């Protein structure tokens, strides 16, 4: 029998100490040379357009985006590649690409990132203007811009936060669908007593950041002034909003919301436990796809879920939304190609396919698509064309910027609201603490 060593020796001859050392040195020198030159060998230099995005909550949306990228690649005669990461991982991946000045050519960005990475993203003013003209203008003129007003990313779409309600449970207690936050509180109290609490995260989750901003705005509070620099969270209105969050938590929610991620509220609604959640239409869509049943019955839960506008507070109806943008890095070697792809992707035909593939989840920022027929295809999407009227980007009434993004990523609003809700702080103390933390971040990032 031949041992592996004998086989190696027969094939290559015995390796002396000296030849081993020589090969090690040559290999190390080669690798070091490549690293110093920051250039891969010729074999690795094929032209390839690479795009990174977050794993979409409706997977068919990603499939359509990939199809479009491949179609563009065929037309342009280049290889293409699309990578996806979990939505919470995207900021870390982008940070590492910027630090290393290498990675993908095109990237999905959340709304504060065009300002956060303004030095590293190419200017897209001309392309946004061209696309905007083609699509009848934009519904929101601040999305995708940096602090100086230049477009560093294309406004892509927004994911809105209506309130998803169990209509059967509300009917059971003789109430009508809630229109205001006070209605939500009153109905929520009754339904919690029947084992069906409300589910709003007070945790390190994206949903918590969106919903709590919506509540603060609905009470007339704001995080910053219109100049996007002056921290203005410490106001009587915000204190009242925090007091309302505490009342809602105590009377209509359960402690589990303190540990929820962005998935838990969907699970809570679709499993039949929760009576109301503030969430994009993904909860309803997954209930429909999974054919989830109301416990103890044969009735699909999606039949009794409906969406209504975000509730109104003393200062009106306001809610935040997840605004997605897409930009191209300055360190990309394919900048022109990346812009050509964006031009292709933002054509009416491609945008329509992308919107349809997402089942209406990717709500358009182009006026031409805001009344798209998909929203008439299901009565439960009726809110979609109008919710934009009440929806603002984080940082409102200012513009989303690097500072608002860092406040978001540190979960300052959910943490302080949770501390107030769990009696660790009074509303006044919690708001004061949020102000201090925000001021520190605004000082460093403005």
């Amino acid at each position, binding site marked *: 029998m031949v041992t592996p060593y004998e086989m190696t020796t027969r094939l290559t001859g015995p390796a002396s*100490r000296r030849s081993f*050392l020589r090969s*090690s040195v040559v290999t*190390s020198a080669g690798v070091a040379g490549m690293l110093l030159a920051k250039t891969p060998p010729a074999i690795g230099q094929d032209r390839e357009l690479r795009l990174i995005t977050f794993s979409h909550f409706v997977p068919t949306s990603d499939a359509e985006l990939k199809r479009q990228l491949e179609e563009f690649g065929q037309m342009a005669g280049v290889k293409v590649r699309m990578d996806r990461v979990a939505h*919470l991982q995207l*900021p*870390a991946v982008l*940070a*590492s690409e*910027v*630090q290393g*000045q290498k990675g993908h050519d095109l990237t999905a960005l959340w709304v504060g990132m065009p300002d*956060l*990475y303004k*030095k*590293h993203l190419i200017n897209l003013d001309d392309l946004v203007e061209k696309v905007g003209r083609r699509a009848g203008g934009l519904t929101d003129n601040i999305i995708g811009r940096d602090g100086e007003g230049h477009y560093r990313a294309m406004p892509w779409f927004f994911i809105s936060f209506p309130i998803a309600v169990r209509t059967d449970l509300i009917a059971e207690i003789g109430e009508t669908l809630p229109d205001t936050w006070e209605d939500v509180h009153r109905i929520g109290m009754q339904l919690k007593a029947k084992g069906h609490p409300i589910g709003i995260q*007070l*945790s*390190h989750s994206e949903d918590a950041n969106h919903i709590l901003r919506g509540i603060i705005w609905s009470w007339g509070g704001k995080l910053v002034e219109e100049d996007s620099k002056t921290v203005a969270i410490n106001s009587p209105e915000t204190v009242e909003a925090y007091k309302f969050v505490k009342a809602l938590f105590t009377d209509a929610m359960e*402690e*589990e*919301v*303190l*540990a*929820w*991620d962005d998935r*838990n509220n969907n*699970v*809570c609604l679709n*499993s039949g*436990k929760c009576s109301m959640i503030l969430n994009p239409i993904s909860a309803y869509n997954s209930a429909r796809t999974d054919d989830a049943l109301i416990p103890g019955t044969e009735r699909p839960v999606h039949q009794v879920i409906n969406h209504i506008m975000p509730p109104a507070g003393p200062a009106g109806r306001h809610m935040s939304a997840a605004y997605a943008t897409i930009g191209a890095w300055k360190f990309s070697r394919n900048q022109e190609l990346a812009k050509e792809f964006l031009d292709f992707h933002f054509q009416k035909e491609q945008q329509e396919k992308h919107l349809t593939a997402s089942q209406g989840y990717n709500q358009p920022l182009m006026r031409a698509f805001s009344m798209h027929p998909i929203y008439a295809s299901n009565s439960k999407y009726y809110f979609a064309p109008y919710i934009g009227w009440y929806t603002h980007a984080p940082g409102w009434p200012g513009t989303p910027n*690097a500072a608002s993004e*860092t406040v978001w*990523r*540190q*979960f300052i609003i959910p*943490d302080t609201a*949770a*501390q107030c809700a*769990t009696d*660790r702080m009074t509303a006044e103390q919690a708001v004061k*603490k949020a102000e*201090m*933390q925000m001021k*520190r*971040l605004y000082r*460093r*990032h403005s």
Partner: protein
Amino acid sequence: MAISNTTEQVLVGRDLTAANRQRWRHSLGPDLDGFGFILPAVIIMICLVVYPFFLAIWFSLSDAVIGEPGQWVGLENFMYLFGIMYEGEDLPWYLKFKGYSWDLSLADDIFLLTLRNTLLFAIFSVVLKGVFGLGAALLMQRATKMKRFIRGSILVPFVAPTVLTTLGWWLILDPTYSHINWLLANLWPLNLLGLGPFQWLGNPNLALSSVIFVNFWRGMPFFAVTIFAGLVSIPDQLYEAAETDGASTLRKFWHVTLPLLRPVMAVVILFSTIFTLADFGIVYVLTRGGPMNYTHLFATYSFTVGILNQEIGLGAAISLFLFPILLLVVILQLKMVRKETGYGV
């Protein structure tokens, strides 16, 4: 067979050349080949350990943000964390001797909470691992059947990928459908106790306890197997001598086993303390630092500040904060290990 003159000259010539080479090599040191062999390891160490370490120190002393090198700011990042402000003249950092004020209310309170969390996490976790690891090692030593199976299976939590096993714990501790809560509510006789449901990841104290428990569950096998290796190396004659002197089981454990395990325990505690203080995956998967930052550790908070918030300088300062303390612990532990421990047989 006779060797021709020409061949002889060639051989002698080659010998001379080899001798010269040998002499030259000796003049450089005793064994040049030895240096050659360790060179790849040295290069790897420099690239993957030394360079990142000094880079992190530089970052912590600069105002670097992601994608930009930053300027030297001295200890400003560390002062910021503790609420120390400079209100003196605008001088270069090495001339700023006066003008500092300290207001703890201006300190980064998430950092202070992180400091408390990290210390609690490390102390409880290492103590639990030490106590239960020692117990498991003693049990393994006494096992007479299925020894290999027991020794192998106890290592499973340690060798399985951290993220994978933590995801399992995440489901077990799920806020809405925790398996443990279900057992407490439905499994006889637990359901008679009327306990729960508990918010394992939602209540600050329970959440910190949960991450400590998962770290303990994962790290205990390392203690058990290492201590077990130490146990089997203790000569039986010592126990026999103690028995002859009439020592009870407890006294044998106290006066023979524990003192002789001291070097092993010191090394394993040292490694575990370092790994525990640097833990990231368990907290990131289970709680992402929540609820209300009550489970943030240095690694997760420095990731939030340095990577997600772009402030890589401040992030590096947070992650390096424990380095001097850790260095002191390492020095003390190593001193303890070096103390001579003889078996006296």
